[in-house]
């Protein structure tokens, strides 16, 4: 296809264009940014084509019913395989799942949680370039790496992973935004290093932890295992070892600051829950901006400094806004992409 003469619809149907929108690589980003520079009059078509691709890719991403259904069928399949084994090589009939007694159902329910965590795993792709995975506003993604480590990427975030890790060098990934890591321990105690956009390095053996790289500071919460943080500020590198339950913030202004927390609260976003830990409304607004792509404007001087502590189930930004409106008696209106918040 000749990209220079393509309409928005043609671009949106073009395989290379779709790959760039959905799974950008360094190579495709280079190609399309050069293209945009060279053909500035194509900007409108490109923007519209991009929106069309995102729209067409839309599935009910937060609809876990398929994962649950997959689990139910799996239980059933296991039964069928077992009966087949008992019966010998000639057996093998498929039973409908719905005729099963309650007990089977309960045991199925118990395994669902385990499966959900792994059902959306992606095979890491085979290519020579480093691969970048990105999430849109309001989207989450689970990525399994070749070493069986798992990364859960929160909304509006991206992670870059090299294609191949050498056996005797640290495994390194670059994060922008927020992600939860479950890192496998390798036999040769190969290190795993997460680098944030602000240059903080999180050095890991085998462990689970959450990294938040937005706004002014990096925030690392350790669920289990052991990590070593290092950050270079004003030319000096500082290091710190973390224990499970530690929350450490790293900022240019105040360096490391440490406190003890319940890590579950900080990783709850994976399950569509959000924990406001003595947040100001300004911070809540920033979260809505980062994760859902809105602009949030407060009126009045005191309002943005008001504080809230809450643990909410959140499917969309309205769930947060409704709670704020009730707690602080606010009027919340929306015009196009901007949310205006004022006192009643």
């Amino acid at each position: 296809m000749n990209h220079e003469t393509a309409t928005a619809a043609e671009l949106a149907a073009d395989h290379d264009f779709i790959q760039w929108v959905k799974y950008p690589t360094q190579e495709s980003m280079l190609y399309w940014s050069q293209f945009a520079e060279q053909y500035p009059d194509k900007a409108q078509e490109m923007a519209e084509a991009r929106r069309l691709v995102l729209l067409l890719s839309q599935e009910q991403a937060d609809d876990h019913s398929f994962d649950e259904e997959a689990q139910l069928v799996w239980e059933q399949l296991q039964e069928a395989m077992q009966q087949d084994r008992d019966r010998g090589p000639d057996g093998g009939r498929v039973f409908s799942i719905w005729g099963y007694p309650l007990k089977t159902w309960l045991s199925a329910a118990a395994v669902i949680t385990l499966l959900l965590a792994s059902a959306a795993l992606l095979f890491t792709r085979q290519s020579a370039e480093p691969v970048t995975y990105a999430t849109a506003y309001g989207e989450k993604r689970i990525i399994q790496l070749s070493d069986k480590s798992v990364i859960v990427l929160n909304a509006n975030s991206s992670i870059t992973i090299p294609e191949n890790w050498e056996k005797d060098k640290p495994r390194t990934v670059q994060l922008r935004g927020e992600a939860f890591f479950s890192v496998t321990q390798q036999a040769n105690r190969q290190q795993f290093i997460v680098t944030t956009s602000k240059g903080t390095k999180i050095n890991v053996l085998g462990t689970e932890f959450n990294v938040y790289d937005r706004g002014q500071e990096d925030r690392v919460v350790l669920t289990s295992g052991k990590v070593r943080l290092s950050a270079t500020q004003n030319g000096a590198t500082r290091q710190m070892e973390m224990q499970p339950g530690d929350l450490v913030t790293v900022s240019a202004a105040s360096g490391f600051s440490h406190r003890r927390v319940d890590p579950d609260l900080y990783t709850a976003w994976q399950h569509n829950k959000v924990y406001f830990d003595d947040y100001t409304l300004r911070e809540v607004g920033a979260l809505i901006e980062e994760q859902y792509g809105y602009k949030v404007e407060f009126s009045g001087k005191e309002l943005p400094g008001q504080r809230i502590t809450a643990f909410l189930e959140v499917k969309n930004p309205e769930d947060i806004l409704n709670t704020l409106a009730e707690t602080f008696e606010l009027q919340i209106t929306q015009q196009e992409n901007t949310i205006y918040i004022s006192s009643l």
Partner: protein
Amino acid sequence: MDEQEVWGRYKAGSEDDFSLLYRHFAPIMLRYGNRITTDKELIRDCLQQVFFSLWKSRATVGTPASVQHYLLKAIRNELIKKGKRAKLHDELPENYHFELEDSHEQTMIQLQTAEMTRQRITELLSQLPARQREVIFLKYYANLKYEEIAAIMDIGQDSVYKTTYKAIARLQQLLHNSALLLLILFF
């Protein structure tokens, strides 16, 4: 993780790798089935049948170039084989047009929140003819190449492209009418 390696170990009889294949591919197969028929029980039975057969024939089955491609085609064939024709989504006539029941202004009011916009778009997508929806799923959700879609659906590559293009053009026209395109950026 290398899909070919997992497949190789499953063929050698590893239940762990068989389970890995299932966990990885079953959700997308269910989603795909859902685009083809509304009969959920049929989809579940077919999914189970595909994997049951896969397990039984592990020693003799070949090694596909793309496992996802192979499994999507397998569930499609199974659905068509088992499906009672009536329950498969009826193909809509080519000249079918769905109408926006609201005026432009009402639509805008309706679209005040992102969630409503999302529902609206899902609704619009669900109103496209069945074949267009199937192609869009394979192209944009399963991220397959045109030639792969052609092989799964047993139609020409050219016809896959035309169907995709038609679906896009129709949505585009509709979105321009309803000003939705402006809003979809925001979720």
